[in-house]
C-alpha cells in the first residue's frame, strides 16, 4: 500500500460522509415529498446542498471504483467503514449530541475492525496479473 492508495481510502470516507450529510441537510430544507408529487424530486436536485451532495457522492464513486481496481472488496469495505465513526464524532463535536455508552461501544467496535483489516494485505495474491494495467492484452 502506497501513501496515494491510503489517500484514496481516506477520500472514500470523506466524500461519502460529507456527501450523505449534504444530501440529508438539503432534503430537510426541501421538505417531505409525497409519492403522488414525485416530480418534485427533480426540482430538489437544484437545491444547492442536494447538488453539492450529488457532486461529493460522484467523488465517492470515483474513489471507490479506483480502490476496487487494486484492492479486495473484503479490504475496502471494512477499511472505509471508519466513516460511521467520523459521523458519530462529528455529531458529538459539532452538534453536541449526547454520547451514550452504546455509541462509544459502536465507535470502539468499528475502529477495532478497521484497525485489524488495515494491518493485513490489501489484495489477494494471485499467480499472474490478468489486468490490462499490467500491460497485457485483455
Amino acid at each position: 500500500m502506497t501513501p496515494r492508495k491510503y489517500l484514496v481510502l481516506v477520500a472514500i470516507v470523506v466524500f461519502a460522509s460529507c456527501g450523505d450529510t449534504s444530501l440529508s441537510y438539503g432534503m430537510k430544507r426541501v421538505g417531505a415529498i409525497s409519492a403522488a408529487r414525485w416530480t418534485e424530486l427533480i426540482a430538489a436536485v437544484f437545491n444547492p446542498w442536494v447538488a453539492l451532495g450529488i457532486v461529493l457522492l460522484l467523488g465517492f464513486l470515483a474513489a471507490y471504483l479506483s480502490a476496487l481496481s487494486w484492492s479486495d472488496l473484503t479490504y475496502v469495505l471494512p477499511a472505509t467503514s471508519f466513516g460511521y465513526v467520523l459521523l458519530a464524532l462529528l455529531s458529538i463535536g459539532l452538534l453536541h449530541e449526547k454520547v451514550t455508552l452504546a455509541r462509544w461501544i459502536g465507535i470502539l467496535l468499528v475502529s477495532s475492525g478497521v484497525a485489524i483489516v488495515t494491518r493485513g494485505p490489501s489484495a489477494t495474491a494471485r499467480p499472474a496479473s490478468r489486468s490490462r494495467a499490467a500491460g497485457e492484452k485483455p
Partner: protein
Amino acid sequence: MSALRTWCAIAGIVLSSTAGDVLLSRAMRQIGDVGELRRREGLAAVLKAVVTHPSFLLAICFLATSFFGLLLALSWDDVSLVVPASTSLSYVTNAFAASLFLRERVDRRRWLSALLVCAGVAVLAT
C-alpha cells in the same frame, strides 16, 4: 406478518447490494489499476472502460434495486430497524460472496474485521 414483510425486504436489500458490490469489484479487477490506465491512456479511456463493462452495468442495476428496496422498506417500518440491519448484514454477506465468487482470501483477520464492523454499525446506527 408485517415483520416478515420487512425482513423479506431487508433480505432483498442485502442480497442486491452484495451482488452490486461483488460485480463492481469484478469489473474493476478486470479493468485493472485505474491510476496506471489513466497515466497510460488518459481519463477518457478509463471512463469508457468502466461505463461499457457489462459487470459494471449489471452492478448499477443491482445497486438501484437495493436503493429502491430501501425506500420501500422505509415506507413499511422504522429507519432504526431497516438501516442498521441492512447495512451491517451486508458486511457479512459481502465477505461470503467475495470468498465464493471473487476468490478473495478471506482469512480470520478479515472475518473478525467484518464481524466487528457489522456489530459496530448495528450499534451506531440504531
